[in-house]
């Protein structure tokens, strides 16, 4: 109930497919998706494994609420050792793929080994097959999606695909499903590419059952009402998407600008949600056409946009002339504010390219930003960039970089390394705005102090989706804390990290937590799944998952030294805005955080902590 109880194990080296029952004893301890698949991964791989070698595994995992009527119950995650970070990776995606996998009858697919030649998988109910991908290797996500559906005469398939970026093992390449939803971060696409696996296409006609149907419908109905009545999930997100944050974060002085040189962007309004919904001067049309929901989602924050056909970036490029996935806040920031580009149409075009080629727009934008700073400092020149005038604010340069990176052509090959390797190559690793090799998302930790600790301690490298304390520090959810203060932040970060790990393991979307707490989520899990699932138990389960990920990273070679921030954020004070004069107070927060976690001063979980959590 909730779970299908079945796993598909595909060995690409041998070309074998096996089925096995889900370990229900582990499901009780780790729930599903992020937690449960990470348990499988840490049991099965050596933490020191080369992420791009055949001994790394990757798991496509659903949660027990995936494919149910719970709002947002359509998520799936890809769990592996990250190509960008060498740390544990778990990249979460919406769209319809996760629910379809569940309807096909599977909780997860474990992919092992490396195929001798490019292949793709089809999973049609209980029939799984490996097919030659020779004809789509080298093709874009969009073309491959179309080709596979035609080849199998099934337009109802939902497909997760790597673009050419994943094939070329761009270190922050992603896995795209349903054309523009993505398991985006940490280079999970490169891992898939290293296995010569182009795509997984699924089609399911089985049902998902729950433990107590009437109680489940009641719990999900009540929870949907909470989402509907909440200002963020009921109005802000459906109307403006995550882009509702652009002006808010800019005013808070926490909008990283030009590779975090500044904390406010003068062009923020030009690339905001409001700009997307206002008719353009050029053709009188709006950039934003509509919102879209992922499977089962009653929030519907997704953006569907259309670029002005006369815009320079898409002239003679008809593949970008139709509507497709538009800018989320993170992409608009990384591609826009962080590069100093305020051309909304160019950012939308680059976002389309990221979906088409399979690039994480956060790490891509942040890497271009770092390269722009290197260029500004004269550490790289037009000779390095192949003639690109890589100035901050240049939409032309940004577009050119996007077109080269997925294909690993020219300077794009260097951009595909990510900011840390790129900046290290040119002698300035300090200019990479990253933790554990993964680039920051869209919140400057001088203006939102808790996010500094969030980034430094995130198990998958810098990330906002591991503990979104922005909720508390800026939006006042569940209660307002001072974004400029460090007091109380270690406990806040820990609580957010543990709760988020539980939410990610359920099959629900973390965006629900703008309105929901575990008190709203636990009754839904409890009505769907065997066993008792209280909010307290889910919190404990989240803490267990967090520590399991931490132990994996420690064994992979990470130490307390890696729980750090780039020097800029802890030594260069913010120049303007509410945080003017402040740096991030990580050193004040980290020891207390370790203590609260039950870890040693070196950031290692103590034996008492591990046994308390049944690890």
């Amino acid at each position, binding site marked *: 109930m909730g779970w299908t109880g079945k796993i598909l194990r595909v060995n690409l080296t041998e070309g074998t497919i096996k089925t096995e029952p889900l370990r229900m004893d582990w499901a009780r301890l780790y729930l599903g998706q992020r937690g449960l698949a990470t348990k499988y991964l840490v049991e099965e791989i050596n933490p020191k494994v080369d992420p791009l070698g055949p001994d790394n595994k990757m798991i496509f995992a659903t949660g027990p609420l995936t*494919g*149910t*009527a719970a*709002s947002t119950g359509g998520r799936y995650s890809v769990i592996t050792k990250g190509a960008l970070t060498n740390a544990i990776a778990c990249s979460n995606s919406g769209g*319809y793929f996760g*629910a379809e996998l569940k*309807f096909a009858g599977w909780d997860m697919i474990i992919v092992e080994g490396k195929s001798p030649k490019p292949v793709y998988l089809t999973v049609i109910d209980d029939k799984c097959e490996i097919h030659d991908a020779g004809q789509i290797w080298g093709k874009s996500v969009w073309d491959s999606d179309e080709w596979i559906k035609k080849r199998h005469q099934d337009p109802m398939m939902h497909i997760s695909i790597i673009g050419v970026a994943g094939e070329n093992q761009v270190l922050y390449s992603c896995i795209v499903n349903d*054309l*523009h939803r993505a398991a985006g971060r940490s280079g999970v696409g490169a891992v898939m590419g290293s296995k010569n696996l182009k795509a997984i296409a699924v089609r*399911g*006609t*089985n*049902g*998902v*059952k*729950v433990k107590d*149907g009437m109680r489940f*419908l009641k719990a999900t109905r009540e929870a*949907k009402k909470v989402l*509907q009545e909440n200002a963020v999930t009921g109005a802000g997100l*459906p109307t403006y998407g995550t882009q509702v944050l652009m002006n808010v974060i800019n005013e808070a002085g926490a909008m990283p600008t030009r590779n975090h040189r500044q904390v406010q962007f003068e062009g923020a309004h030009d690339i905001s949600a409001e700009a997307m919904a206002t008719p353009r001067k050029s053709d009188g*049309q*709006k950039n934003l*056409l*509509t*919102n*879209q*929901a*992922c*499977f*089962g*989602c*009653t929030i*519907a924050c997704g953006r*569907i946009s*259309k670029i002005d056909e006369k815009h320079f970036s898409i002239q003679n490029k008809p593949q970008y002339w*139709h*509507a*497709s996935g538009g800018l989320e806040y993170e992409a608009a920031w990384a591609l826009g504010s962080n590069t100093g580009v305020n051309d909304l149409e160019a950012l939308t075009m680059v976002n389309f390219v990221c979906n088409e080629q399979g690039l994480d727009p956060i790490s891509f934008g942040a890497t271009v930003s770092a390269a722009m700073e290197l260029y500004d400092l004269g550490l790289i020149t037009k000779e390095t960039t192949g003639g690109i005038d890589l100035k901050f604010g240049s939409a032309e340069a940004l577009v050119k970089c996007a077109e080269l990176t997925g294909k690993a052509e020219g300077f794009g090959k260097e951009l595909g390394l990510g900011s840390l390797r790129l900046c290290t190559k040119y002698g300035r690793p300090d200019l990479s705005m990253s933790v554990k090799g993964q680039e920051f998302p869209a919140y400057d930790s001088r203006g939102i102090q808790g996010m500094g600790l969030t980034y430094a301690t995130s198990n998958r490298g810098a990330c906002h989706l591991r503990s979104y304390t922005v909720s508390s520090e800026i939006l006042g959810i569940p209660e307002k804390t001072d974004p400029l203060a460090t007091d109380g932040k270690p406990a806040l970060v820990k609580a957010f990290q543990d709760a988020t790990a539980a939410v990610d393991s359920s099959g629900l979307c973390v965006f629900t937590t703008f309105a929901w707490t575990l008190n709203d989520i636990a009754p839904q899990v409890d009505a769907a799944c065997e066993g008792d699932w209280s909010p307290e138990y889910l919190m404990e389960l989240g803490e267990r998952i967090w520590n399991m990920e931490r132990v994996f990273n420690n064994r992979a070679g990470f130490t307390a030294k890696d729980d750090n921030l780039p020097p800029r954020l802890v030594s260069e004070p913010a120049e303007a805005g509410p945080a003017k004069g402040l740096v991030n107070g990580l050193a004040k927060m980290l020891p207390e955080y370790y203590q609260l976690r039950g870890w040693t001063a070196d950031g290692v979980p103590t034996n008492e902590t591990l046994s308390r959590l049944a690890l």
Partner: protein
Amino acid sequence: MLKALVIDAGKCTGCKQCEMACSYVKEGEFNVAKSRIRVFDFHTEARFVPYTCTQCAEAWCQQACPVNAITTNADGIKIVHENLCVGCKVCTIACPFGTVNYNASTGKVIKCDLCLGSPACADACPTGAITFRDSEQAGFDKMRVWATQAAHGTTTQGPNTPAAKG
């Protein structure tokens, strides 16, 4: 008063809650493949369209059925009687809209029966894209939009243009 499902595709976000509700009521499990209502995704045009049986007054499925397994109730609802259906699928050919379909696991056909008067899809729809209303007034909302525009002298945007979506 005959009631009908009124579908405003402009309000649909593609969340498929209608399909989940339908399959749960009809099959006892969440299974969109068995839903009587389906949402179609025209993503390059930014449109999502729920579609199901409109309960034709003169129902071709009913007329084509060789064993009279489809009947009309007092509310005008066309109902498939599973005990009579022989799974010949002639009705699936006869229906011009494709809204009667074969269910291989039961060997019978399935179609929307408006949950016999309280359709679960309309109840589950979070955006009001699917409502259950007086069939004689189904078009009034659209008329009102056009009338409003006529009143203000603008006819460049109809209720079905993407820009009018909420």
